[in-house]
């Protein structure tokens, strides 16, 4: 079957790939672009492990047709750190022990980034709401919510 060319920005890098018709973005990011920081969990839109930002808004990459991201901007967990400098969310997750197995972490980070970019001072309930589509089997969510609030405070220069 004829492949379709798709061009998009992946974490600042201009990216052009030929994709199969109907291919989902998760597969294209992982296999096509080699960005393994985007996880594949359920593949059916229920776990949130595959969350990426499309033009700044969290989306489930497993339910996104790759062809629909033409000329759009995709952000994944792989683009969070600037060289050796971790993003405030990554630092807060690390210091707050907000991961055990880590399988949900990339999706949690991107859901959290989508929230903080749009709402830099979220309430606890708003944080819980923002990650309500992301399943975590290990942490009980509390350390993750705490880490996101800590990162928000630090990014705003507030005391934690």
């Amino acid at each position, binding site marked *: 079957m004829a492949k379709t060319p798709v061009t998009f920005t992946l974490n600042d890098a201009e990216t052009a790939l030929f994709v199969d018709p109907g291919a989902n973005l998760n597969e294209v990011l992982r296999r096509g672009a080699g960005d393994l920081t985007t996880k594949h969990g359920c593949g059916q839109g229920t776990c949130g492990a595959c969350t990426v930002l499309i033009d700044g808004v969290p989306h489930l990459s497993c339910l996104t047709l790759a062809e629909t991201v033409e000329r759009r901007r995709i952000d994944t967990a792989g683009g969070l750190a600037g060289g050796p400098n971790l993003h405030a969310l990554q630092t807060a997750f690390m210091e707050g022990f907000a991961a055990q197995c880590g399988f949900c972490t990339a999706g949690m980070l991107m859901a959290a980034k989508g929230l903080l970019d749009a709402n830099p001072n979220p309430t606890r*309930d708003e*944080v819980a*709401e923002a990650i*309500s589509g992301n*399943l975590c*089997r290990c942490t009980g*969510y*509390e*350390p993750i919510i705490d880490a996101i609030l800590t990162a928000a405070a630090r990014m705003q220069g507030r005391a934690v």
Partner: protein
Amino acid sequence: MTIHKGRGFACINYPIGMNLGGDPSQALVHSTPDGKFMVALSSIDLGQGMKSVTRQIASETLGVPVEDVYVDTADSDTGPHCMGSFASRGTHRVGNAVIRAAAEARKQMMEAAAEELEVNASDLDTDGAGNIHVKGAPSRSISVAETAIAAQFKQGRTLSGRGIFLIPPSDADPETGEMTPVTCFAHAALVIDLEVDDETGEVEVKEINSAYEVGRALNPKLVEQQLIGGAWMGVSHALYETTEPNYPERDHRPEDFNTYLMPGPGQVVPHNLAVLERPAEDAPFGGKGPGEMCANPVLPAIANAVYNAVGVRCDRLPITPEKVLRGIRANGGARPQGMPG
């Protein structure tokens, strides 16, 4: 409609590891030529912290900085045998194997250093910062890196060690059936406060208060995160999770994460946690490890609290609204048992 408050308590005496075949685990430790140490295992880190804790144990035993220890695990083709990550055995069994392997590697490291410094190995000590020195004369020293280089290129000696841990065999006494299946126990006590709605049968856990005795907490933050996350899983098992249908039709059973219920980030329960430390004699640096018991006491405590709230004794999990309502109906109404204490 009335909301009934209930409080329930449970405590456990939790065996660490199992008895089967002595429940062995092995570890291998060797140095690289630049004086870093590799710990080879095949024990799995599922996120509970196996790699962090065995790394700490190896570094402490070797007397070298934790940054200089690398743990390579989870591949049974390349790592020595391990029974597995289950039965809350990891810290205790694998940790003990790592101590033995690291102690043997340390002995060789000290002998190699002694040869370089021309002293007796028994007169040497490590400073934990990457150096080996003569006891009482810290200026007479050699770095671990230099020692490893000398061992590799001059002395033709390996700095390596093998370790295995096996618990003493214990068969059941044919007369009494008595046996000693495990060598150490961890303990916990946990109180649940919850509310039961007698119209919908819904149970909402409001607060968890717990005390866990896990021997020495080798990595206190890892212990805490495991206990918090595990208690969440206990709530989930007690009230939500099942692969059976909630209603009689088999077709109504959960098939994916949309219908397999678990509490989400909006249902986080405040959990006040106390970790008590009673180091176990045969445990690595006293640490028994939290393991499965981080979830276990939550379930009976919730069942007791539901009984306390509405007088319904549920003996099948999960305690769904349907079971609570059927129980209330069978009793002819909610029968609050009164708040203990």
